[in-house]
């Protein structure tokens, strides 16, 4: 290795390098633009080294060479004040699982290619503090540069990713053709290699039964819709990742502007409209849904992940609509991560079986939501509103 290429220090999963604990992790911060609906924005660039076989075709030795070359380039180009180099071959399985739960690396990178999962040369470079930048090396493409920003901040995410691209090109030469643009292992990423996505929290659309309309609209606009856990996962906790599917024939800024100015604002407005409708015409039903979930999380003794995610989604909606007092959005966001199996095990410092995890999850939620309560806005004091708040003509879900 060249001098100066020493890693920027270890990664501490408990803090993400910040003083604010997991809450300091960029995408959990909750203070980004439109943070009530948009948890985070991401820009991802796929890049491959010129004149080099793609990762899946390369021998182990060639992948190691790519890894070494990329390591030098990444650590030597001042991408962030600190960059932690996480060699997947040296990470424990638990650390790899943490990174996946954290949405920093893909399952594919964590798993590696065939054989014992430790032995495939691949890595992730993570900027600290805050984990705003994560570069995967030797995933499907040699380099996957991802920049993450809290809230609706696709422009900042894109600028960040393009800056990393520029800096890396000072030392690396990327595979490119004038016709097809940046060349990627899979032709669906060719061109800009740019995938932009937002993570949306859409509880009101689900409660009002409009979520299928949202999904159809997204697919009509040629967007991919995935769940919280990514490809092929069902929506858990009313969280959806929406991203562009085509990368050729549009400039980076066209891809960005379409999503930032046209498409995502419509989804945000749609969700907010539904929330306002629930808080107005169906206020009691909304409060009932929120407080049932809060009650359950505050008192249950055994909880599995999906169940906890669903009730946290309702509590998050309750915090946003002012029904739930105590926890702020950042705390609720952090809980979405802390209740995941590997994070849970880490917080307890040892492996847990599934039943132990369900118990530990319930214990954690009880403790973290102890101060959460209802600020009853008085509708129950108004006898005229006893009718479920669901005025005539609304479908309050069977009463």
């Amino acid at each position, binding site marked *: 290795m060249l001098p100066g290429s020493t890693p920027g220090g270890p990664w501490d999963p408990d803090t993400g390098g910040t003083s604010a604990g997991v809450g300091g992790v960029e995408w959990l911060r909750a203070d980004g633009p439109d943070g009530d609906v948009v948890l985070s924005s991401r820009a991802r660039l796929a890049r*491959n*080294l*010129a*004149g*080099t*076989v*793609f990762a*899946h*075709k390369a021998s182990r*030795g*060639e992948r190691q060479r790519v890894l070494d070359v990329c390591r030098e380039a990444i650590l030597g180009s001042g991408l962030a004040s600190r960059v932690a180099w996480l060699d997947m071959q040296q990470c424990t399985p638990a650390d790899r699982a943490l990174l996946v739960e954290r949405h920093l690396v893909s399952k594919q990178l964590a798993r590696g290619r065939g054989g014992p999962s430790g032995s495939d040369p691949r890595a992730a470079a993570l900027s600290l503090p805050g984990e705003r930048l994560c570069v995967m090396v030797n995933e*499907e493409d040699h380099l996957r540069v991802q920049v993450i920003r809290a809230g609706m901040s696709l422009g900042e995410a894109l600028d960040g990713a*393009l800056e990393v691209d*520029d800096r890396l*090109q*000072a*030392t*690396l*030469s*990327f*595979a*490119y*053709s*004038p*016709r*097809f*643009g*940046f*060349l990627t*292992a*899979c*032709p*669906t990423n*060719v*061109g*800009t290699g*740019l995938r932009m996505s937002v993570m949306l929290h859409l509880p009101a659309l689900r409660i009002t039964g409009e979520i299928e309309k949202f999904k159809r609209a997204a697919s009509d606009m*040629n967007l991919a819709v995935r769940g919280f856990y990514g490809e092929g996962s069902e929506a858990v906790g009313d969280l959806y990742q929406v991203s562009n599917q*085509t*990368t*050729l*024939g*549009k*400039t*980076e800024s066209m891809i960005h502007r379409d999503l930032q100015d046209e498409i995502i604002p419509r989804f945000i407005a749609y969700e907010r409209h539904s929330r306002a409708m629930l808080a107005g015409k169906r206020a009691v039903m909304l409060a009932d849904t929120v407080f049932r979930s809060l009650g359950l999380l505050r008192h249950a003794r055994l909880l599995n992940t999906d169940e906890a995610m669903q009730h946290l989604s309702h509590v998050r909606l309750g915090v946003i609509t002012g029904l739930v007092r105590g926890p702020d959005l950042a705390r609720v966001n952090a809980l979405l991560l802390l209740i995941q199996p590997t994070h849970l095990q880490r917080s307890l410092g040892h492996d847990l079986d599934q039943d132990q995890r369900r118990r530990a999850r319930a214990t954690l939620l009880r403790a973290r939501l102890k101060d959460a309560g209802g600020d009853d806005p008085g509708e129950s004091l108004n006898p005229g509103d006893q009718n479920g708040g669901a005025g005539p003509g609304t479908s309050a879900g069977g009463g």
Partner: protein
Amino acid sequence: MKCDHCDNEATVHEVTIKDGVNVERHLCEQCAATEGLAPAAGPVELIKAVLESQVGPRSDGCPLCGTTFDEFRHQTLLGCPGCYEAFESRLAPLIERAHEGATQHVGRAPRATEGAAVSEAARERAMRVMAIRRMLDEAVSSEQFERAAQLRDELRRLTGEGAPR
């Protein structure tokens, strides 16, 4: 294999088609130079020459990495950047379909700077190294050990790598 003109080992191989007949020339480095056949031809030509002299299914593959179009269809991943050129006519309609009819990149291009010019040389060298690695693999697997030794020398010259793989 011996040189067509002398007793040295042939290291330069050329196949041309004249009147529908393959004409092969196998020359040592010296004779190749006097014949105007530079041994250090670009990697693509070099590999093409090797591949064209081979018969069999490989000729359908990418000249740089050997991936065939069928393999690509099966796993939807290409083998190397050169595959885009090798399969351009068959890929273009697939790419067009995947990208809402787009056929032409309009986004940013690689940084055109001094650094990139240097990188261009590095790129060519990398292509050549990749080509030689592949030939080396083939030579070893077909037990052409003399050829393998030459390729290893060439590789060492280009990369400073010396260890047998």
